[in-house]
C-alpha cells in the first residue's frame, strides 16, 4: 500500500507522542462504550476457544463422533428435528450427513480461527518491527536493501500467493501452522513501513540524540528509546490486521485449500453449508454469524484501540464521564 495511505490507516502522528501508561490506555478504551462491549465479546470468544474441550465436555459432546441416527439418511442426510436438530443434547444441532455435534465443532473451530490469526499477527508484527527498525537505524545500504525487500513483499498478492504456496507444501505439514506462516510471511510490509517511517521521524528528536551522545549503542537506543514510542502505532496496526487475518484463514478454508477436514474450521463449514441451506439453514447461519460477530468485534476493538492511543483524540474523550463527547466529533478519528 502506498505509504501515505498506510500512515493514515494506522492513525500514526508524524511524530509520536511519548507512550502513555497502560492504565491511561485502559481508561481511554473503557471510555468508548462500543469498544468496551467489543473487548468483552472478544474476551469471551478467546475464553471459549481456550476452553473448547471443557465446553464440549460440558455439553457432553465431542467434535468427531458420528451420529448416523440423528440424520435422515432417506432424505439425503438432513438432520432430524427442527432447526438442524437443535436439542438439549445438541445445542447448535448436528452436521448434515455425519450427525457430528455442531456446538463442539464450532468451539473447536474457534480455536483454529483465532489461533491461526493470533500466530499470523504476532509474526507480522515481529518481522515488521525487525525489518523496519533495522532499515531506520542501519546505514544507507542496509536501508536500501530492506526497503527493496519490503517493496517485493508489497508486490505479493496475499490470497494468490497463499493459494499457490498451499499447493506445493506437502500435506504432512500441519495446516494451521502453515497458514499462519504464509499469512505472516507474506503480509508484513505494512508493519515494517510504519515502523521505519516512525523510527526515522523519532531519530531526529532530542531524546534520541541525547542517548546517542551518551554513547549508547544502536540496539540499546532501539529497545529503550524507540520501542516505547513505536508501541502505539504498531499496536494500532496489529489490532487492525487481526480481523483481516481471521477473514483470510476463513477464505482459504472456504476455497478448500486451508484447514483440511476432519479439523473443524468456520470457513470450511461454510463451503459445505451452501448445499444445505434449504434443509438445514442453521448449518450455514451459525458459522457465518460467528465469523461476522468475531470480525466485527475485533474491528470495533481495533478502532477503539486506535482512538485510545491517538494523542489527538485524547482531548475528545472525556475520561471519567464514561461517554464520548457528542456533537462535533470532527477530530476524533474512530471513523
Amino acid at each position, binding site marked *: *500500500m*502506498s505509504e*501515505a*495511505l498506510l500512515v*493514515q490507516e494506522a492513525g500514526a502522528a508524524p511524530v509520536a507522542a511519548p507512550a502513555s501508561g497502560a492504565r491511561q490506555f485502559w481508561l481511554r478504551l473503557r471510555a468508548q462504550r462500543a469498544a468496551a462491549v467489543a473487548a468483552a465479546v472478544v474476551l469471551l470468544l478467546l475464553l471459549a476457544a481456550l476452553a473448547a474441550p471443557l465446553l464440549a465436555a460440558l455439553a457432553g459432546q465431542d467434535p468427531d463422533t458420528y451420529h448416523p441416527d440423528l440424520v435422515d439418511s432417506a432424505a439425503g442426510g438432513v438432520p432430524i428435528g427442527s432447526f438442524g436438530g437443535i436439542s438439549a443434547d445438541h445445542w447448535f444441532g448436528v452436521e448434515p450427513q455425519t450427525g457430528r455435534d455442531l456446538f463442539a465443532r464450532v468451539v473447536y473451530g474457534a480455536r483454529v480461527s483465532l489461533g491461526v490469526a493470533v500466530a499470523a499477527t504476532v509474526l507480522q508484527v515481529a518481522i515488521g518491527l525487525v525489518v523496519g527498525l533495522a532499515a531506520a537505524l542501519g546505514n544507507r545500504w542496509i536501508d536500501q536493501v530492506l526497503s*527493496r525487500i519490503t*517493496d*517485493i513483499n*508489497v*508486490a*505479493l*498478492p*496475499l*490470497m*494468490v*500467493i497463499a*493459494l*499457490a*504456496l*498451499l*499447493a*506445493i507444501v506437502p500435506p504432512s505439514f500441519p495446516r494451521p501452522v502453515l497458514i499462519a506462516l504464509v499469512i505472516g510471511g507474506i503480509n508484513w510490509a505494512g508493519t515494517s513501513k510504519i515502523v521505519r517511517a516512525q523510527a526515522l521521524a523519532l531519530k531526529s528528536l532530542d531524546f534520541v540524540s541525547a542517548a546517542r551522545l551518551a554513547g549508547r549503542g544502536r540496539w540499546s537506543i532501539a529497545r529503550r528509546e524507540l520501542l516505547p514510542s513505536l508501541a502505539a502505532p504498531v499496536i494500532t496496526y496489529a489490532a487492525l490486521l487481526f*480481523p483481516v487475518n481471521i*477473514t483470510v484463514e*476463513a*477464505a482459504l478454508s*472456504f*476455497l*478448500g*485449500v486451508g484447514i483440511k477436514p476432519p479439523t473443524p474450521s468456520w470457513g470450511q463449514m*461454510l463451503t459445505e*453449508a*451452501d448445499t444445505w*441451506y*434449504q434443509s438445514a439453514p442453521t448449518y*450455514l447461519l451459525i458459522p*457465518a454469524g460467528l*465469523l*461476522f460477530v468475531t*470480525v*466485527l468485534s475485533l*474491528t*470495533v476493538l481495533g*478502532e477503539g484501540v486506535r482512538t485510545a492511543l491517538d494523542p489527538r483524540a485524547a482531548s475528545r474523550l472525556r475520561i471519567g464521564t464514561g461517554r464520548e463527547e*457528542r*456533537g*462535533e*466529533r*470532527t*477530530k476524533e*478519528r474512530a*471513523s
Partner: protein
Amino acid sequence: MTGFLLRRLGGAVFVLLSLTVILYAVFYVAPGDVAQIACGPRCSPAQVAQVTEQLRLDDPVYTQYWHFLQGIVAGRDFSTGTGVEHCAAPCLGVSYQSDQQVMQLILTKLPVTGSLVIGAFALWILLGVGTGVLSAWRRGRITERVLTWLTLAGIATPVFVIGLLLIIIFCSTLQWLPSPTYVPFTEDPEQWAWGLLLPWVSLALIESAKYARLTRSSMLETLAEDHVRTFRAYGVGEPAIMRRHALRGAVAPVIALSALDFGSMFGGAVLTESLFGIPGIGRELVHAVKVVDLPVVVGMVLVTGFFVVLANAVADLLYALADRRVVLS
C-alpha cells in the same frame, strides 16, 4: 518529475525481476520432483524420464531459470514431443494439464475478470464515496451513527458470506433472479449484466465500506483544519465548504486506494469468482492450485504481481497529482 518516474520504473522492474527469481526458486526448485508433478502421479519412470528430457529439467538450475526469463522477455520454443511449438513473448510457459500456453489462458480469462471488476468498481465507488460524504455531512447525527455501523458491518463480513446470503435470498427464496451464470458481453449484453448483477453487488457492498471510511475520515480531517474555520467565520455556507474544501481533501486518498484495489483485484477476486462460478482468472488459479499445474500457478502469480506493482506506482503518482502538498522524491 521525469526523475521520479524513471526511479519508480527502475524500482518496478527490479521488484518484478526479484519476483521471477523467488517464484522460480519456490515453485520449480523447492518441490524437487517437477517432472513427476508435470507428468502426473501415475506416470511410469520411463515416462517421467521422457518429460524430464522434454522440459530440459536435467539442465542446471540457473540455465533453466535463464530459459524461463528468456521466455518472458523474448519468447521461446517448446518441444511438444512430436514437434516444436513457439511461445511468443511474454511467454509464461505451457500448462502441464491442458498443454495450453499460460499467457493465452490468462488472456482468455482476462475479459471475464475484467467484467466483474470494472462493474463492481463503478458500484463501490458510487456507494462508498456517497456513504462517506453523507456521513461526514450529517456528522454527529443519527444518520452518521447508522451509516458508521453499516460500514463496520460491511468491513466485518467476508465477501463469500454476503454472496451466499444474496444467492439464498434472491435466487432461492424470492426467486427474483436466476442463478448467476456468466455470459460473455459479446454474446448477449443483457444476459451478461443479469448474470453479473449479484457478484457486482456482493463485491461492491464489501469494498465500498473501506471507501466510505476513507472518504469520511479524510473529509472530517479537512473540516477540522484552521482554514475551514476561517472560511466559516467569513460566512461561507456549509454546502460550499463540503463541496469545495472537504470533498477535495478526500479525492487524493480515494484515487490512490482505487488504483491499489484495482491492481490487486485482478488476481484477488478469487473468492467472488469461486462462489458465483465465474470462469475468470481467480477460479482458474484455484483449479490450477488443486491440480498442481505449476506453470499456470506461477504465471498467474507473476501477472497479478505485475498488476500490483503497476498499481502501486500509479497510486503514488495519482496521489501526488491530486494532492499538491506531496513532494515526489
